[in-house]
């Protein structure tokens, strides 16, 4: 292979070729250095340090840390606020992922139709992505306000009793999921839309001629072909759901009665309120492991279903 150039009859001497390759190494080093240093400083180092700290007792201020083995992990298991936060986070995922994935798919199917107003609706459904999440949370807070909010007014119009919303632990979780879903669903709609529009039109036309209805065409042609996208969206929404925090802080501060106390909130409290870096780090490691495990499991699961 080294003499490849000679066979082609080029005049480049071998030495020059070698020199050029080493030049590539230097150029690559120059171009990559800032990012690699940055990633090492912000991601690689800290994740290792988190794992390390999870075995120590430390308040984050004093110079001495005490090695405690797995005590911090034991602490989590015995801490009701942590087990609650795990429970809340899983509920959050169970509500958020189907809502956003299913909602985004439905919206994508709707705006993929060739109607004159489809383009306008694409914009409308996608618009909340441009609204800061804190703004979204504050506006929805007004809409869900129990005594003068619009939602309870609507309920009253149809004769239903007013709901406490953010003052009820279960309904508050629903509201914080809804706020985040409202913001994110358009993003995933665009991803689904691209996948649906990439389905070859001939397939759909042939199926149509053979008498397949819209539902049948979707189930037998579109759904199998967009499966990779569906996997991607389910994994992404799960990862997002486990990290949502902003609208929870604005709307409920984790309450009422720990109703919206997600994992990130636990980490935040341990770290800044109680200055317990050990449990905060252990909870971070657990969150990291949960996210990794769920992502891998989902990819496997969908692949398995695909092979049938």
């Amino acid at each position, binding site marked *: 292979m080294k003499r490849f150039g000679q066979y082609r009859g080029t005049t480049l001497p071998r030495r020059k070729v070698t020199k050029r390759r080493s030049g590539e190494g230097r*150029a690559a080093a120059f*171009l990559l250095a800032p*990012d690699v240093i*940055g990633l090492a400083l912000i991601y690689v180092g800290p994740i290792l340090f988190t794992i390390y700290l999870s075995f120590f007792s430390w308040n984050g201020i004093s110079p001495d840390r005490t090695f405690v083995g797995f005590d911090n992990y034991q602490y989590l298991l015995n801490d009701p606020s942590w087990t609650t936060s795990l429970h809340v986070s899983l509920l959050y995922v169970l509500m958020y992922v189907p809502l956003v994935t299913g909602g985004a798919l439905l919206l994508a199917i709707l705006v993929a139709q060739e109607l004159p107003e489809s383009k306008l609706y694409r914009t409308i459904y996608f618009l909340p992505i*441009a609204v800061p999440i804190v703004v979204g949370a504050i506006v929805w807070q007004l809409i869900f306000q129990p005594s003068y909010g619009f939602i309870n007014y609507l309920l009253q119009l149809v004769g239903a009793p007013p709901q406490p919303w953010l003052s009820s632990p279960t309904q508050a979780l629903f509201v914080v999921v809804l706020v985040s879903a409202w913001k994110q669903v358009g993003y995933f709609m665009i991803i689904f839309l691209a*996948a649906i529009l990439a389905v070859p039109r001939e397939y759909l036309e042939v199926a149509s001629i053979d008498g397949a209805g819209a539902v049948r065409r979707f189930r037998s042609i579109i759904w199998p072909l967009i499966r990779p996208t569906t996997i991607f969206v389910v994994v992404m929404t799960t990862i997002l759901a486990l990290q949502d925090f902003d609208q929870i802080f604005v709307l409920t501060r984790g309450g009422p009665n720990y109703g919206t106390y997600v994992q990130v909130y636990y980490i935040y409290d341990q770290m800044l309120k109680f200055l317990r870096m050990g449990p905060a780090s252990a909870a*971070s490691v657990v969150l990291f492991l949960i*996210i990794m495990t769920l992502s891998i499991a989902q990819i496997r699961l969908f692949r398995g279903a695909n092979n049938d």
Partner: protein
Amino acid sequence: MTRRRRRLQRALLRTMMLAIGVVMIFPFLWMVASAFKSNKEILQYPPSLLPTEWHPENFVNVFSDVPFGRYMFNSGFVAITVTAAALLLHTMAGYALAVFRFRGRNVLFFMIIGTMMVPFYSLLVPLLQLSKALGWIDSFTGLIIPWIPHGFGIFLMRQYFMDFPRELRDAAAVDGASHLRTFFHIALPTAYPVMAALGIIYFIGNWDRFLWPLIIINSPDKYTVPLGLVQFQGQYSTQWGTLMAAAVVASIPTLFLFVALQKRIVAGVTMSGIKG
């Protein structure tokens, strides 16, 4: 018969699109309408759709009650700096990973992909310590630096440059251009559309950022818009009119970018989904 059925189907589709559209856009309309209402009117029941009396002075109060202009400037400064630096550095790294052959390239690539799996929020404890050690607490540096490195952006730019024609590089080499010159003068300009798409996503993400500023910023003159809003919400919890006006103002930059560059954003999001 089939024509009637199709017409019925269309009508159903249109109704669904309209209904969902109303739900999606309702918070905007409610926000804007409330921003012009008096506080008394917002607190009344049943709620009014449009203001019965218009109070544009709510918008003046946003800037006089709290230094909201300052927050806007801070957020803009942070978001623009992060976006510009991230775009340049990610394009550089993506190009290097896509076109150069060098030892350790694959290892490095997988390490970068690996960082995409690490949730940022599981790094809060060490990042806070790092920020203390480097003097980033309560500084713009602390708001900016942690958000520049990003495995995803590097990955996306690498995907783009994988298709960069070899002939172009060879032609530049024949003309005597160095690797870096080839990158900055030939490869980089071709990437502008992709960078624009990625850039908008970065800008919106950083304009939005809340938890990290909440942790490291203490002095009000360094507040970003989301911090300012939350502080506003806490202090003037009953001043809904002014709070809604502040919410409108806070959304203007990102909404403006969105409307102006919607096609690019869609292209960027689509690109991010393709990786599957």
